[in-house]
């Protein structure tokens, strides 16, 4: 696998959308290729950051109360 192949698979690798065989190939490349490894780390980090930052706060209490009246 060359760097272009690796970078093309990076989204799917980070999102756990590759097959086991493909995962092994990417892993093998990352071990030997610090620049791709850096790309990978950045992508993982960005994904986690987006998750953590966008996952805060919840629905207002009055909305929950209104919906409970509607639903139950």
């Amino acid at each position, binding site marked *: 696998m060359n760097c272009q192949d690796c970078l093309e698979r990076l989204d799917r690798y980070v999102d756990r959308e590759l097959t086991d065989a493909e995962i092994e190939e990417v892993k093998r490349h990352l071990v030997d290729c610090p620049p791709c490894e850096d790309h990978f780390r950045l992508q993982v980090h960005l994904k986690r950051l987006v998750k953590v*930052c966008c996952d805060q706060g919840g629905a207002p209490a009055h909305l929950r109360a209104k919906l409970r009246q509607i639903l139950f």
Partner: protein
Amino acid sequence: MVEVAEDAAETRGPAAEPTPDHPVRPDDGTGGSDRGRSGRDEGSSRSFAEEAIGHLDTLYRGALRLTRDPAQAEDLVQDTYLRALRYQNSYQAGTNMKAWLFAIMRNLFWDRFRGGRPEDVSLDGDGEVSLYDTLRDQTAMPEAEVLDRIATDEVVRAVERLPELHREVVLLVDVEGFSYKDAAEVLGVPIGTVMSRLHRARRQLQKALYEYARESGIVHADRDR
């Protein structure tokens, strides 16, 4: 590069009309699912409601990211639950209710708040800069460390500034953890479209966060390092 013409094939985007072959779209009551149509007892109705309200916080957060307005987000969530209740017979117990609710919500969002027409999304790569490449050139600080110094609000803002078609993919895959397949079903597009939108969205996020990092002095764009 994969399918440059992705959005052209999908001019109207999410259809307002229920389509029978869409696995997570609410039933239109004309047939299809024959399970539990008239025989749904109070108990199963109640457990449907319990399960549905269990997704309230995550739906509300998603609505807030989509509408970028608390009042509109409340309206959108309330309408989503009203529609879910009306079409609850089309929901098959044991399947992915979160995906089902998100599908209802994003269809309502496009129909009600956006007139059913997805905004145009630039298909070329203009303005997409890799944070990695840029930082590599301009700073000695590790990229991950740069990201750690960016405030939560700023990350949320960057997500909210993404074009809507890109934003909703990020919400489904990165925030809600949907598989590409589930995201594709919620959005009613092929998996390849999910992938290309996600890729573009991430490049745009990297660019936005890098610009913020530079403007706020987290990294310095000095050329003569």
